[in-house]
């Protein structure tokens, strides 16, 4: 019996033991036999996934590795859930990672009663897209359902039933979100009461609001109507107009009774009396219309604004009280301005400046003798002097300033010259403190020398407390860039008893240095991970530095492949390591651009009488189309096709006729390019471009086919270099303008020309903005060589130097002074060419030998021309020194170019700006023909408008010296309309 009891107990123990599930502790420390990843039950062997799992077969199981693996997998942004399961495999443990992928909604559908009035599936989809993005996660289905319900309520279906359901396509991991809609009854408007307006007017108000009892209650539409009503009233001067809507639901929410509380308010008129107030500033001073209010606070502020305006002009006693008068539904607000006398500075007396000579203080002062006195300018001067002293170590320095009527000054003969005003500035210097010592405490990882170099403070310098704060920030930034994100720097200073010396201590708590463990790249569908990795300035094992993160973000943005990039840290077990998660959202790979417009400018045309050159305004339509595909094969390669066409009207009248040849010459340009960044794993970007074009110049037209291979590299953000090889076939159209006897020999001998050339350029670009620069400069030097040895029919060497500078004038609101200089030089290689007749037969001389001509010029398409954009007092290509203009006034072009421009760019209002410019330069037949007396000049002005596509400009240039060309005096002006700045 005893044995039976023992057996029973043993069996029960076994049962209990078997029934209890294993604890996590049971698995810890055991060797991992296998690690398997499954996505929705299907095993995966994706190395990108396996690579981020920290648990390894053969290693001992650690929960820290499990946590880190979950963190890595989750951070990839691909999975809604990650679950790690363990099972005993003998003495070992097998791990299974069950991954639930994020299913993004690819399609949104609606079923149910979606045909009911007021329900638009497109509107609902757009609302969902606006709230949750283009590809929301399936787990947002519930939230999306709530949004759909809100939208239906806004359309009068106050009790909608919206049931979302998600159907997942596991093959593509995409889902369809379907909403079943049961809108319920639509609430209609029942009774409408209006308060705040007399009874006879209520019907017209209702009519204007377009509210009819019985119509559906659409909350948003109702709000839009009332807002429009209020806006119309305010536009008519009823600035206090307002409507509030009271809503009462009745009849089980089937009807809604509205109460519209209309407050029209008086019609407000603002008048100014007394001394004149500038008309363009009145709305700024009294913003009743903008604020929609005429309350007392606003009116008092308006008075103060007017008074302060006049005080800045020297009218210290200016007063601008307002008065209200309400009569017959109109509120008249009258601001009566009394400027009082204008105060003018008669003298500025500075006292107490023992340590700083007056010669150093005087240039800082805004108040000058003879100028209008302004108390705000006096306060600014006081603060500026105080800051100067503080910077020099006079920490306790105090500056007092006041003014009074200068009774000693002779009163101005003309009262309009104002009251003489004496300004007194009294300086109380106090003691000057210098830094006696600078100590660094607590820095173990960064040496003293390096820290001292980062800060500007040093022994012997004036003691200026704000400088300490700036140096502390610099030190912290240095640590942050080294990966010490938690570093803290405190700065303490101790003044000596006499206040003359300060000992400064920087107390540093370095904290742990954070290193990068893994770099996880998320969101790249097309782009290869190595394309992204090579742009990162931070790699596994590197310190997680702030500067490296910023640089990485910048480089990724510059790729142009991503709509958004984000770098985030992922913490896991270890305090000193982080994973870096690089999340990218790829831009659409295909871009399509198109557009059109009108090109306008002055061009040279042959006059009907004698064919002499005359300038005409040319208007021609222009259209362009471009399509590009980027990120080819995930390697940031791109291919682009671009086409532009611009037909020019025929005839000197410029009328578009329907007869043959009506459209005249058509300019076009077709371009196909392929770009490969970081070609052959170098830092250079390469491109191949094929061009078909047809262009019109003042004295000739040409058609050209060319192929260009180019490689360029940016060595620093400012400095770059490039080299290219180009082969082109150019065909000149028969010259319509230049007489054959005046055509250059090369043009007669080579109406068709093959050119093969190599060129190189270096650039240095420090402009703050390449489209609208306000500072910096641009330098470039380009050299081109065409030679018969590399397949060119003629040879030449050509160089172009460009130098530009931009400066914002101090104390101005972005007034920019811009300068530009272009120098071009070219020389042809001599070549002997047999003369041919019109049939192409070689012409022989009396001795039977072919007649040979020596040509040294550049072909027409390669010669320099100027006029138009570069010299705005002249029509396109019109400019030329003697020797480059033919007998009828058409330019032939030259081998030397000099153009210099200076322009002052002044912003006006909104996107509008004005410019004034001076242009000088000319085109010379040969470099040695340059003569200062041949430099032509022009001046003018223009308007700029900052449009979404860039600055649109209209320039009117005036020739400063008009010459007689081809027997006719030049026109004095030229007008140009174009996109972009002139330079």
């Amino acid at each position, binding site marked *: 019996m005893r044995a039976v009891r023992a057996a029973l107990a043993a069996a029960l123990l076994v049962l209990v033991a078997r*029934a209890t599930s294993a604890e996590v502790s049971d698995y810890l420390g055991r060797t991992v036999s296998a690690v398997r990843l499954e996505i929705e039950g299907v095993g995966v062997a994706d190395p990108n996934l396996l690579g981020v799992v920290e648990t390894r077969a053969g290693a001992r199981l650690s929960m820290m590795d499990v946590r880190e693996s979950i963190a890595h997998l989750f951070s990839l942004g691909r999975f809604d859930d990650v679950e790690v399961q363990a099972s005993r495999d003998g003495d070992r443990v097998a791990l*299974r990672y069950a991954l639930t992928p994020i299913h993004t909604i690819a399609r949104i559908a609606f079923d149910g009663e979606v045909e009911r009035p007021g329900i638009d599936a497109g509107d609902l989809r757009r609302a969902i897209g606006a709230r949750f993005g283009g590809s929301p996660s399936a787990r947002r289905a519930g939230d999306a359902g709530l949004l759909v319900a809100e939208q239906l309520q806004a359309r009068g279906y106050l009790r909608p039933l919206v049931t979302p359901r998600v159907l997942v396509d596991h093959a593509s991991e995409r889902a369809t979100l379907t909403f079943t809609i049961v809108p319920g009854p639509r609430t209609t408007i029942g009774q409408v009461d209006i308060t705040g307006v007399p009874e006879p007017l209520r019907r017209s108000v209702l009519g204007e609001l377009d509210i009819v009892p019985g119509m559906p209650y659409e909350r948003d539409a109702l709000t839009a109507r009332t807002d429009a009503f209020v806006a119309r009233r305010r536009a008519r001067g009823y600035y206090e107009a307002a409507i509030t809507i009271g809503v009462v639901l009745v009849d089980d929410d089937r009807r809604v009774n509205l109460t519209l509380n209309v407050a029209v308010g008086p019609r407000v008129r603002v008048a100014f009396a007394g001394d004149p107030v500038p008309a363009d500033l009145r709305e700024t001073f009294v913003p009743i219309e903008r604020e929609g209010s005429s309350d007392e606070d606003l009116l008092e502020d308006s008075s103060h604004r007017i008074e302060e305006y006049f005080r800045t002009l020297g009218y210290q006693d200016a007063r601008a009280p307002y008065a209200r008068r309400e009569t017959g539904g109109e509120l008249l607000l009258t601001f009566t301005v009394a400027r009082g006398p204008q105060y003018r500075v008669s003298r500025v007396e500075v006292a107490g400046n023992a340590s700083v000579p007056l010669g150093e203080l005087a240039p800082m002062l805004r108040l000058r003798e003879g100028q209008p006195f302004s108390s705000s300018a006096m306060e600014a001067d006081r603060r500026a002097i105080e800051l100067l002293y503080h910077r020099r170590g006079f920490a306790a320095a105090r500056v007092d300033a006041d003014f009074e009527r200068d009774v000693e000054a002779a009163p101005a003969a003309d009262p309009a010259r104002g009251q003489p005003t004496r300004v007194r500035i009294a300086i109380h210097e106090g003691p000057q403190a210098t830094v006696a010592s600078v100590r660094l405490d607590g820095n173990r990882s960064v040496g003293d020398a390096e820290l001292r170099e980062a800060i500007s403070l040093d022994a012997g310098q004036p003691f200026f407390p704000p400088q300490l704060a700036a140096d502390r920030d610099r030190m912290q930034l240095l640590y942050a860039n080294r990966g010490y994100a938690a570093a803290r720097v405190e700065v303490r200073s101790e003044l000596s008893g006499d206040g003359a010396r300060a000992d400064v201590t920087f107390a540093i708590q370095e904290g742990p240095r954070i290193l990068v463990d893994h770099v996880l790249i998320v969101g790249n569908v097309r782009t290869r991970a190595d394309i992204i990795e090579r742009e990162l300035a931070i790699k596994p094992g590197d310190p997680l530095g702030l500067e490296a993160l910023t640089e990485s973000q910048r480089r990724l943005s510059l790729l142009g492949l991503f709509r958004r990039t984000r770098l985030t840290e992922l913490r896991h077990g270890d305090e000193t390591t982080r994973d870096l998660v690089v999340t990218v959202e790829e831009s659409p790979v295909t871009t399509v651009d198109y557009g059109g417009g009108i090109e306008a400018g002055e061009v040279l045309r042959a006059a009907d009488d004698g064919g002499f050159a005359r300038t005409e305004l040319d208007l021609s339509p222009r259209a362009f189309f471009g399509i590009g595909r980027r990120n080819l094969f995930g390697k940031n390669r791109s291919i682009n096709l671009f086409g532009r066409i611009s037909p020019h009207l025929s005839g000197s009248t410029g009328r578009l006729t329907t007869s043959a040849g009506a459209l005249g010459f058509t300019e076009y340009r077709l371009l196909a390019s392929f770009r490969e960044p970081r070609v052959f794993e170098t830092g250079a970007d390469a491109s191949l471009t094929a061009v078909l074009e047809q262009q019109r110049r003042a004295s000739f037209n040409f058609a050209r086919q060319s192929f260009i291979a180019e490689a360029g590299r940016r060595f620093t953000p400012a400095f770059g270099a490039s080299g290219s090889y180009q082969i082109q076939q150019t065909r000149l159209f028969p010259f319509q303008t230049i007489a054959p006897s005046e055509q250059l020999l090369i043009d007669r001998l080579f109406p068709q020309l093959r050119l093969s050339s190599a060129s190189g350029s270096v650039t240095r670009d420090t402009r703050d903005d390449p489209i609208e620069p306000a500072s910096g400069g641009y330098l470039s030097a380009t050299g081109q060589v065409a030679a018969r040895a590399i397949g060119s029919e003629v040879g030449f060497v050509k160089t172009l130097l460009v130098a530009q500078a931009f400066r914002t004038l101090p104390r101005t609101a972005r007034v920019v002074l811009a300068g530009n200089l272009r120098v071009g030089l070219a020389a042809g290689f001599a070549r002997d060419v047999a003369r041919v007749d019109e049939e192409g037969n070689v012409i022989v001389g009396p001795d039977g030998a072919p007649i040979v001509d020596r040509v040294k010029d550049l072909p027409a398409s390669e010669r320099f021309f100027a006029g138009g954009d570069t010299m705005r007092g002249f029509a396109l290509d019109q400019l030329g020194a003697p020797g480059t203009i033919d007998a009828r006034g058409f330019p032939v072009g030259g081998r030397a170019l000099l153009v210099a421009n200076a322009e002052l760019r002044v912003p006006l209002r909104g996107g509008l700006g004005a410019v004034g410019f001076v242009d000088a330069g000319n085109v010379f037949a040969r470099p040695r023909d340059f003569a200062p007396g041949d430099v032509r000049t022009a001046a003018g002005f223009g308007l700029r408008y900052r449009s979404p596509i860039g600055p649109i400009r209209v320039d009117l240039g005036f020739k400063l010296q008009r010459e007689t060309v081809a027997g006719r005096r030049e026109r004095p002006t030229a007008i140009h309309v174009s996109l972009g700045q002139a330079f």
Partner: protein
Amino acid sequence: MIEPTPRRLLLLLMLVASAGAPARADEVLDRVLAVVGDHMITLTDVTAARDFGLVDAPAGADLVREILPRLIDRELMLVEVDRYAPPEPGVEALDAAMGAARARFASEEAFERALERSGINAGRLRETLRQNLRIDAYLDQRFTRGRTAQIVQDWIDGLRRRTEIVDLSITAR
């Protein structure tokens, strides 16, 4: 009829024991229980919070029903704390918090085993306690007067409404 001898009885009981025992099932070591914004909360986060007293919960509180919501609230508050950077806790306060966490265990070995079960080390625990102290400092700063549990909860409710929170724990129950 077969007489139930002791040997036969023993055999019968052992057969029953082996037949009635459940098949060995996969044990969930860890999983994602909730996602607060971009931050995930795992099962081991919840067990660590229970074992080391990282959230204010009664003894024996249910992991998912009581501790997880508190961890979600903690994550929401940490976002605000990081934004407004309250004063850093002192070393003494941090040491005291670590000591309190250790004191929940009978021995140092038990403490180490608890760390191992939760997949964290002492450094990570210390960092978590530091964040808790920062939260306290932030709440002191924000609700300088009249700080009540209700006021704090109302504020947290507002954070919840503004943040995307995905509770995956439903399938874990």
